[in-house]
């Protein structure tokens, strides 16, 4: 039976179990959009292609599957790039499909032509410019395999419009042909023994857990290991949620915007086991100093991460899940030698825990108090997305997260405008879950148009806006490091967010006093459709709190 390239693309998606895709059509991808009409695949029409990539990212992380996004050639593809780069930095599995001008026009600067594979090479795990329709089944099989296996990441398939209309004989299911791709899986026994022997002698060990724990679904295993072996856990931004926020061994997030207990533990440990964490500069600024003082074991599925930012004493190139499974079979030695360390860590966690929540009458909303209450009321199953800026740091440090994978944020790339479209993806993957998009007034306006997507899809997303009428994080940096010389951070002429909410069919409430938090959050969470809760925040409220705001009594 004859089949067109476009039909083969749709068939490939169906065969790979794709139910929902995110995209935006255009001339060079029209044959594929035409064939989508004959399938059961649900297409979410975003308002800007960047939103499609972010939505696919949120979908992949909330639904634990590969996200698919689609754009046309030229500007459609270039608009996707920020979203592709965001997914690449956070190792999120995406298959990205772009239209391309027809083969005979490539290279002639024709209308809506861009070198999409060239432009996305630095941000994709792999990409393809398809030259023959008959290759499509194999290329799609490879793309889905590459995106989700090993260290996950985005894979792009650029399909010229005439390849989409070309006809070939039959859709023959194809196997990936990737002789150059052999992701490590099993840990080497010798390396594993090395770690176990370091661990049994360590007086002050910690586990530093990154996004790899979440993407490999290993948080339960990690918890068992940490509890049985008595090892405190610190997390990177991407690792938030590997242990419940109030678990006694969870010391919190490390790094420049992390918490005291986590950073103290990192700098005083004698053994640091990095698990699926690439320890970027925001998480670990002085990596070489740390490696000079403590023994470092680095476990990662990507061999190129090992030795890149920190020189480990013992590298383990393996799937973290298999390492943890092996560890769980070992007999656990006595933890007497680390009693002092465990005590120190738990004292520090208690002493520096942020407990000064405020629910009395006030002029502005206290973000930590709001986020704490929000998390308590939304419950452990709620999924939250964040933007980037102060809202992200407040959420990372104060939202009481219980479940791994429920915190969807742009960790590596730090992309403003990520959270709102990511919430579209998360809610599409989990229609019955509460999905909360936490935002600031700056970042919300970077993807504001996606409110239209939410309206069209009738997604009951709960949008929490922390409004301080400025780019708060940059304002904070300029306050601390640029002698309060504020440059281009004020958004005094913000729109009326109530009118915007109304225009897009959102429920709306605005609060500015902490005593309103509980009732407003209850109304937000119990509303049927999408709803916006605007919270007026003190413009000088920092993310880096002084000890005085922490529990010290």
């Amino acid at each position, binding site marked *: 039976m004859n089949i067109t390239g476009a039909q083969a693309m749709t068939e490939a998606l169906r065969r790979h179990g794709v139910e929902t895709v995110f995209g935006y059509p255009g001339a060079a991808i029209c044959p594929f959009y035409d064939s989508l009409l004959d399938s059961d695949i649900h297409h979410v029409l975003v308002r800007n292609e960047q939103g499609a990539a972010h939505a696919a990212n949120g979908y992949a992380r909330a639904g634990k599957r590969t996200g698919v996004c689609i754009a046309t050639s030229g500007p459609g593809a270039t608009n996707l790039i920020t979203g592709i780069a965001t997914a690449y930095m956070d190792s999120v599995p995406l298959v990205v499909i772009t239209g391309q001008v027809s083969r005979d026009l490539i290279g002639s600067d024709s209308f809506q032509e861009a070198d999409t594979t*060239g432009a996305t*090479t630095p941000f994709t*795990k*792999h990409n393809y410019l398809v030259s023959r329709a008959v290759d499509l089944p194999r290329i799609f099989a490879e793309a889905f395999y590459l995106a989700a296996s090993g260290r996950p990441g985005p894979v792009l398939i650029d399909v010229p419009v005439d390849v989409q209309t070309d006809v070939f004989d039959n859709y023959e299911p194809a196997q990936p042909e990737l*002789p150059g791709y052999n992701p490590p899986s099993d840990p080497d026994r010798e390396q594993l023994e090395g770690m176990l022997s370091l661990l049994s002698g360590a007086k002050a060990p910690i586990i530093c857990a990154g996004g790899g724990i979440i993407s490999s679904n290993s948080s339960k295993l990690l918890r068992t290991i940490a509890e049985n072996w008595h090892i405190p856990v610190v997390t990177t931004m991407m690792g938030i949620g590997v242990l419940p926020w109030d678990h006694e061994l969870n010391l919190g997030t490390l790094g420049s915007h992390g918490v005291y207990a986590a950073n103290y533990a990192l700098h005083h440990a004698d053994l640091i086991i990095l698990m699926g964490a690439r320890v970027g500069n925001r998480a670990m600024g002085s*990596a070489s100093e740390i490696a000079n003082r403590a023994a470092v074991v680095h476990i990662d599925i990507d*061999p190129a991460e090992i*030795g890149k930012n*920190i020189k480990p004493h013992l590298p383990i190139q393996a799937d973290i899940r298999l390492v943890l499974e092996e560890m769980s079979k070992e007999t656990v030695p006595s933890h007497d030698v680390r009693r002092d360390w465990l005590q120190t860590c738990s004292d520090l966690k208690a002493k520096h825990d942020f407990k000064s929540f405020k629910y009395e009458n006030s002029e502005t909303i206290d973000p930590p108090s709001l986020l704490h209450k929000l998390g308590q009321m939304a419950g452990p199953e709620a999924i939250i997305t964040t933007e980037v800026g102060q809202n992200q740091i407040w959420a990372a440090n104060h939202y009481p997260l219980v479940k791994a994978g429920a915190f969807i944020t742009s960790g590596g790339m730090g992309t403003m405008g990520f959270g709102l479209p990511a919430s579209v993806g998360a809610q599409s993957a989990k229609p019955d879950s509460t999905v909360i998009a936490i935002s600031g007034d700056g970042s919300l306006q970077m993807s504001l148009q996606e409110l239209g997507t939410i309206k069209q899809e009738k997604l009951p997303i709960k949008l929490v806006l922390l409004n301080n009428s400025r780019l708060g994080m940059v304002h904070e940096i300029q306050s601390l490091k640029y002698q309060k010389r504020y440059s281009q951070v004020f958004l005094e002429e913000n729109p009326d967010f109530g009118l915007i909410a109304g225009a897009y069919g959102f429920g709306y409430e605005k609060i500015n006093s902490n005593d309103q938090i509980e009732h407003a959050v209850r109304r937000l969470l119990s509303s049927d459709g999408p709803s916006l809760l605007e919270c007026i925040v003190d413009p000088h409220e920092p993310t880096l709190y002084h000890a005085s705001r922490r529990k010290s009594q």
Partner: protein
Amino acid sequence: MNDNNANSKQESHVLSVLVNDHPGLLYKVSGLFSRRGFNIESLTVGPCEIPERSRMTIVVSGDEATVDQVMRQLDKLIDVVEIERLPRDYDVERELILAKVGCTSQTRAELLQIAEIFRASIIDVSHTALTLELTGQQDKLTAFVNMLEPFGIIRIVRTGLIALERS
């Protein structure tokens, strides 16, 4: 690398890289070097004994940690099938040079003598210039160029190093 030691040794390393002969492959490899700040001394690529594959010889400068990271990053490219680091004391290395050198009737004889000593071939000759071809190890080529310099070098082109491990 953040933790490069100040006294770590900068040396040249030779990588033999088997790649899929796909369009855009050269860009993926060269882009990786510029993006990650690796120093490339030379890169040669051409068909090899396997159909639809090419073999690259890449000379990288840097310390041990850098070359290690280069190999790991290259290995991440899906179209890179195999990477070998060639031991420089146990491989065969060759490079080819074409040099166009100015000459007069007075200097031609001397140039021919130098060519003979190095076993270079004369591949083009005119009243004002000679073009010489020489294949050899890099230090030999460098010595050859040094000898030619006083005569006035008009153009030089070198292929970059190619290398194989000894059997």
